[in-house]
């Protein structure tokens, strides 16, 4: 997931006409709320390290606004992705800022992450080959980047879920693995806290 940002800077969009059959089904299963917030638990297995690194926090996806990703434990860090920039805060300090003015790909990254978290597979198909299946009210998909450079940079992504995305798995070429589990999902106006609304 970390690699996504840089990798997308060299990404490729191949327009694909129409979505394939399983994707249309999955799209039908997914809810499309304007506001979607919840908790995430992330585990990273880094090459050359004994222990996995666990962290958790809250995330919010607001249609038309962007994505807020707040790591709360063990090290607070907030990431905000909007149309014009990607900013990472460490406490009050801006640790990193990518502006769309300078990095035109910021908009693309933002749209991909938004699609990923809200499960907008139609949008993802422009960058990835989407291979998926449906069982009852659950689904799973594997994403394979259409461009070798992108594949090399971010590896393989798989998603599964029901009405919302439940799990994301990323396996990188370097051997690093990241697992993200979403829970306590809330939608609608009441889902986002005042503090979060102020941040986004």
């Amino acid at each position: 997931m970390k690699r996504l940002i840089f990798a997308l800077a060299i990404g490729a969009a191949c327009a694909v006409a129409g979505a394939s059959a399983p994707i249309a089904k999955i799209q039908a299963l997914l809810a499309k709320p304007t506001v979607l917030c919840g908790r995430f638990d992330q585990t990273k297995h880094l090459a050359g390290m004994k222990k996995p690194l666990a962290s958790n926090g809250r995330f919010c996806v607001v249609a038309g606004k962007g994505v807020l990703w707040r790591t709360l434990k063990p090290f607070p860090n907030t990431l905000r992705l909007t149309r014009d920039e990607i900013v990472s805060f460490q406490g009050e300090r801006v640790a990193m800022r990518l502006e769309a003015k300078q990095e035109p790909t910021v908009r693309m990254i933002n749209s991909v992450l938004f699609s990923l978290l809200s499960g907008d597979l139609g949008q993802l198909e422009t960058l990835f080959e989407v291979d998926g299946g449906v069982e009852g009210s659950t689904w799973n998909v594997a994403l394979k980047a259409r461009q070798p450079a992108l594949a090399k940079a971010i590896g393989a992504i798989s998603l599964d879920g029901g009405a919302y995305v439940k799990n994301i798995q990323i396996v990188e070429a370097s051997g690093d693995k990241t697992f993200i589990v979403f829970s306590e999902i809330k939608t609608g106006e009441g889902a986002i806290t005042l503090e979060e609304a102020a941040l986004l």
Partner: protein
Amino acid sequence: MNPEVKRHKWLAWLWALVVCALLGHNAYLWVVQRIVPDTDILALLPVQERDRVLQESFTHMVDAAQQRVIVLVGAAEWNDAKRAADAYNAVLATQPGVLEAVKLSDETQGDWLAPFQKHSVALLTAQQEAQLRSASPQFWTDAALAKLYSAFSGPKLGAFRDDPFGLFSGWVQERAQETPVRPRDDKLFVADGERQYVLMPLTMRAPAFSMTAQQTVVPLLERAKQAALKAAPQAKVITAGVVLHASAASSQAEGEMSTIGLGSLAGIVLLTWFTFRSLRPIALVLLSIGIGFLGSLSVCWLLFGRIHLLTLVFGASLIGVAQDYGIYFLCNRLSADPAEGSVRLLKRLLPGLCLTLLAAVIGYMGLGFTPFPGLRHMAVFSAVGLVFAWLTVVCWFPLLVSGGTLTTGALAHRYGATLAHWPQARLNARTLVIAALFVAVAGFGWSRLGVNDDIRSLQNPPKHLIDDQIKLSKLLDAPTPVQYFLVRGASAEIVLQREEELKRRLDPLIAAKRIGGYQAMSNWVPSVRTQLERRALIDSKLLAPGGPLDAVAKAIEEDSAWSAATRAHLMAPRAPLTPAEFLKTPPSEPWRHLWLGDIDGVHASIVALRGMSMAALPELRRAGEGMEGVQWVDKVAEISSVLGRYRQYMGWVVLGAYAVVFALLYPRYRGNAWRVLAPSAVASIATLAVLGLTGQALQLFHVLALMLLLGVVVDYGIFMQEHPGRRNTTPWLAVGLSAANTLLAFGLLGLSRTPALQAFGLTMLIGTTLAWLLVPYFANTKENEHA
């Protein structure tokens, strides 16, 4: 047949031989060699002795730019832009070898970074370096841990242990920001608020200023543009390149040349008809002009091996002067006793004719005193043309026009009659009042006269080209190729160190938003000294035992062996990164022009500036002052200052020419010599005053025109002085015909859209008109013969 006529016949045959040789040579030039005039405006500029390094830097910056054509095809939607760009490229592909797309290296990101990855410890941004010196160890520990735990904290390159503190990725990000262009779908992408563009850098095979380039490249680009717009109607195509300017300038000059040439010819034909009521004088005058023109072409080509289009344009106006000799002879033939033989008549006219030729040639030769090759060509072209036209008149006219062949037209009669009522300069109260008034008005005009030596005022490219150029530089944030710092040193290392020193001085200007940034080799390859300093800095601040690295290891429950291994991995001894090594890698491709390498034992590089405003120029100049081996290069200012110097210099040449011509006239006219020069002198002063009153800025070309004005108007003075008194209206008729024709020729030059020619033409227009009116005012009325 009397011996005089016989001798003259020999002369005529001899001249016929010369003319035949001329015709042969011209036929060979145009038909066999297929010569084409130059259109490179730079060929008109001074060639200076400069040092090789500076010359080389200019070649690096400008020549590369000259062969480039940059095309942007944009649309609101990326897919539309791509479709339009593909249509564009399809048209270019129909003529292979004309324009080549600059190859994109399809390097994947990983490979792109490989050359830097192993030197990552030595690559820091200025901001990071400052942070390393000032921030607490805790800050770095937190930064590394946040990076470890957060989902996405910006670009991550390689594994965690390759860049635990995110320093290298910060450096890469800064490098990426040196250009807004990004690869996307195997194309180059750049965007603004409205559109997304496909960027297509193209290289031309043929030199930008060659006619071939202009005749093939420009139409091809136009066809491609139409195809792109057809594929995506909302698309916008922006094209920029020197070739477009060159082609616009040459087509403009071509059009103007034919207009001016034809216009003055038409004027001459009409005037001659109304004066002589015969076609023969027209044919004769055209003959002398034609031979003059062909002669100039031949001689110029033999001397210089090239001819500039502007020389031809200027040459077209030569028609206005070359006619004087023929007209003078014909007017005198008209009024002379038909019984007098033409050869004898010529003999009588010869002193005056010789003087007019000499004065005009001196006038034109003043142009030859400039360092501009183009102007020197014009001087030679004009002088030779005059000599050839003059010789044609002297050798052939007496044999072709015998007494009684010409009759006076009504126009000549009516015009001649005006002379009797013309006011005269006499030393009386009225004259003094007029003189005082004139001095006051002229003084006021002169006081308002500004100067403008800006080279940019010499050219006047079409607005759409300028607009495209501006839009393109905004989008690409590209540095200007004509203003930059040149850095030299005894070795590559010294050059890099000096660059770094210079960049430290430029940083405040970036902070103050005076410039957008700089491009330099040291952005990519720091000096060895800096690389070693940074390695030591990172080692002591981050990796040393008990430092942030150990704290990170503890937080993620790794042992000291892990941090020792990580430290060893990062600090593995390496030879420093060198420019030579960097230049071999694909990422260096856009920056290769910045490194001049070794020139005669001197190493040199260019520091180019992005987002520069004209207002920042003085500050930039100051930024490099007093630094050893650093030189601010401003081609525009340099050429403009040369133009300024020559404007002043030519001013003295004009005054000198007056003195020379006066010396030339004095033996023959004695106390009346001043009468010959007064009209052009007064007209020149008045012309400058008019320019001042109308708010024009004086430039070199106004002064050059004043020089020419002297050459032209002296003829009139001489004609009048050769036949003093007011009974004989012949010289007045010759003056009127010449002046009217000159006005037609140069007046049309004043219509030129090329500012330099326009300034020239306008000055001639005002000056000639005034001089024409002043000639009889100053002419001598006493009918005494010359010594």
